[in-house]
């Protein structure tokens, strides 16, 4: 019998994740282009627009960098949760609560100077997002409630809560009925780092860098960070080494909430300068794709956040230039994630033609 059969790999594939992602991208773009053709759009031109819109030129890269900021922050949190095998898919809702928390700080203390406003804003965002994530964590630990569904429901509830505020109590009386708060005072707006050289790239990027360094130090240098990494690697070994499992679950969820909260805060303050429902564009779900692609390697997270942000920007250009619906981005992300999942098979297995004898 010389049928191909599946054999487990002893060592993971060299450069495996790179090849897998490249293959996944090719498959996904292929399928997506076929769909575009069905829709009567020129696929090759669309690819060109996708590329030039997301990565071709300084303006495109600037856009992509701006979008990768919230995605990066959310992805860090999701990756940390996934590492502990906690299926927290609630970054979207935690993002919304972060935006709400930051806005609350701004509306409550409108006259704070910049040096006080920023920490208060970020703190409120982190607390709001963190608590929003801690509730499902506690429900899971205390009652064994499935965190996938609870975090997802908290997404819907969080977004609706944001809408409730901007349609109601927080609505700007001068907004002609549009659901939005009034524009933030200058002290509450995260400004550009250097308009002359970096364009619109704002201090949120510095926050990302800071968070990334702190997280790397936390994971690499602290005892709790070590427990998180090792405990997620092998839960049995974690039990053997007597690691505080419940505490770790609560920690990763709250951390994810706080980071998503940061993202919400930055998006509100730096990008739209006020709270409005349009900030909810699904970064929290893109973060899942990024987190799964890069596991908990922070540089990979940055790289994949940038790539997926670029795709998002490219899709926006498709929308403008070729009238391709925005949902095209969802198709791309879904296809990429599915192909990566399938491709990771080759990280663990290989086919052999050796007979069974």
């Amino acid at each position, binding site marked *: 019998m010389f049928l191909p059969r599946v054999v487990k790999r*002893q060592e993971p594939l060299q450069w495996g994740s790179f090849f897998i992602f490249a293959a996944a991208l090719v498959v996904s773009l292929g399928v997506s282009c076929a769909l575009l053709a069905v829709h009567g759009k020129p696929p090759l031109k669309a690819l060109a627009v996708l590329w030039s819109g997301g990565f071709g030129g300084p303006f495109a890269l600037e856009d992509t960098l701006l979008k990768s900021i919230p995605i990066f922050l959310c992805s860090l949190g999701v990756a940390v949760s996934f590492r502990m095998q906690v299926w927290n898919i609630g970054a979207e809702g935690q993002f919304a609560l972060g935006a709400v928390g930051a806005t609350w700080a701004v509306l409550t203390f409108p006259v704070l100077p910049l040096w006080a406003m920023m920490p208060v804003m970020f703190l409120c965002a982190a607390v709001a997002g963190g608590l929003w994530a801690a509730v499902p964590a506690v429900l899971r630990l205390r009652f064994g409630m499935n965190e996938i569904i609870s975090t997802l429901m908290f997404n819907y509830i969080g977004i609706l809560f944001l809408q409730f505020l901007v349609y109601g109590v927080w609505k700007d009386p001068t907004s002609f009925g549009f659901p939005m708060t009034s524009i933030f005072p200058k002290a509450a707006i995260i400004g550009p780092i250097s308009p002359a050289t970096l364009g619109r790239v704002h201090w949120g990027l510095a926050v990302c860098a800071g968070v990334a360094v702190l997280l790397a130090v936390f994971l690499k240098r602290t*005892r709790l960070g070590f427990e998180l*990494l090792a405990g997620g690697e*092998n839960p*049995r070994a974690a039990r053997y080494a*007597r*690691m505080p499992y419940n505490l770790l679950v609560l920690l990763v969820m709250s951390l994810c909430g706080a980071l998503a909260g940061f993202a919400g805060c930055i998006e509100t303050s730096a990008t739209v300068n006020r709270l409005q429902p349009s900030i909810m564009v699904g970064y929290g779900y893109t973060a899942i794709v990024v987190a799964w692609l890069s596991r908990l390697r922070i540089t990979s997270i940055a790289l994949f956040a940038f790539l997926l942000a670029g795709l998002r920007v490219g899709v926006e250009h498709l929308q403008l230039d070729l009238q391709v619906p925005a949902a095209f981005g969802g198709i791309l992300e879904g296809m990429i994630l599915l192909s990566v999942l399938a491709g990771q098979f080759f990280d663990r297995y290989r086919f052999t033609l050796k007979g069974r*004898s």
Partner: protein
Amino acid sequence: MSDTPHTPTAVAPEPPRRAREAHAHLPPVVRLEGICKSFGKVRANHDITLDIRPGCIKALLGENGAGKSTLMSILAGKLRQDSGSILVDGAPTLFASPRDALRAGIGMVYQHFMLVDSMTVAENVLLGQSPDMVLRPARMRDEVAALAERYGLVVDPAARVGGLSMGERQRVEILKLLYRDSRVLILDEPTAVLTPRETDQLFEAMWRMADQGKALVFISHKLQEVLTVADEIAILRRGEVVDQFSEADVPNQTVLANRMVGRDVVLQVDAKRLTPVDTVLSVEHLFGPGLDDVSLTVRRGEIVAIAGVAGNGQKELVEAICGLTRPASGEVRILGRPWREFFAGPPGRRGLAYIPEDRQGLATCRQLDLVDNFLLTTRNLFAKGMFLDRTEATNAVKRVVWEYNVQPGDIAASARALSGGNLQKLVIGREFFRKPEVIVAENPTQGLDISATEEVWGRLLEARSSAGVLLVTGDLNEALELADRIAVMYRGRFMDVFDKDDTAKVEAIGLMMAGVRPGEPETEA
């Protein structure tokens, strides 16, 4: 259920085997010829030739790791031999999967039952077997009940498997095979999970099956049971058949025991005795799943070995002592402190070290590097506030790697780069780094080569000077070489705890491992 008290070795009076003569000279149903199988470098089976006859119970006797289960897994289609052939009714046959073997009429009852807990007995028996599209529960029950009646395998067909005892589940497994008219039934250590009473019932059912022309293979390491139930005996040692006995020439228990264990001393160490001092570990009246009133003390300066066949409660005992499972009832005190209090925090200095049998899945993380693996249980020693002093840890790992001669000594490599022996040296180095005062070592030399074994033994003996050691081992030689005192565990209890110098008892360890107390009458073959 009968009210008669049963000792663990109770053996039912042998009923007459009426049909035995009828099958006496039939050709074998299955013949294994020159079977070889290796796992990596380990030779599990080597050139094994074996006949399995209808109406006959064949025992495969051998110690753990002798290759019995591997051989039978090959016959049942679960594993594929490297060379050699399986002849069914004289014709060479190739089994690609258990399904093929089943179709050829060969079925196996594994130690881990293949039953669906949430289904009824009848549903389990008829799974994949029912000829009809629509199930008729009443008819299914009747069919299964009739089958059970015929072979004396009493079990309620309407009961859910999840609520059954191990013995009943085993009967369901056998019924599954009988329902599909299997001609060869392989029972892998079937009595390991049974009570004495259930063991007797199983034997009766086995005779009944043999009388009706089935061929049975009984895998066991328990001499008495083999002598009681088997018609033919084959002894396996280190993957080879060392002896075969037919009904006429079965020797007595002692000869059989020696043939099985083959106590060839591979290694000897010079274990000078120390004077034991204070008690570091005490276990009193511990009960729980798999444990039946276990009491034990270990003092600083001694090694106490728990000898016994795996699966007699050693794992449960170790997990309770090492903080992995909370003791159900009874008391465990470590260094004078109660269990709850001792296991409240992370592992620290001068505490308890656990060297588990499962080095790869439990004691280490394959993907992490040596430093991270080292930090698993020593992280508290390198904590500076909330931070970990990795520089100091790295230096410590370097020292340990050098001192314990871990090869290759690249501390940035992941743990899976290490062979079993080197991984074990790393684990021991890590655990001893904490200067533990209680050490629990579980089959510490399993799978290691001679030099690594010698090293591990040396370390354990050395550790006695500052610690009490509890050594759990399935290797009798290891127990005898290292221990000061030996406890023999059988079915969740200690048969006896005695000093190594008590030669009479030491002689009887093999029997005690099989559940026989010295002084009790030996059963005639």
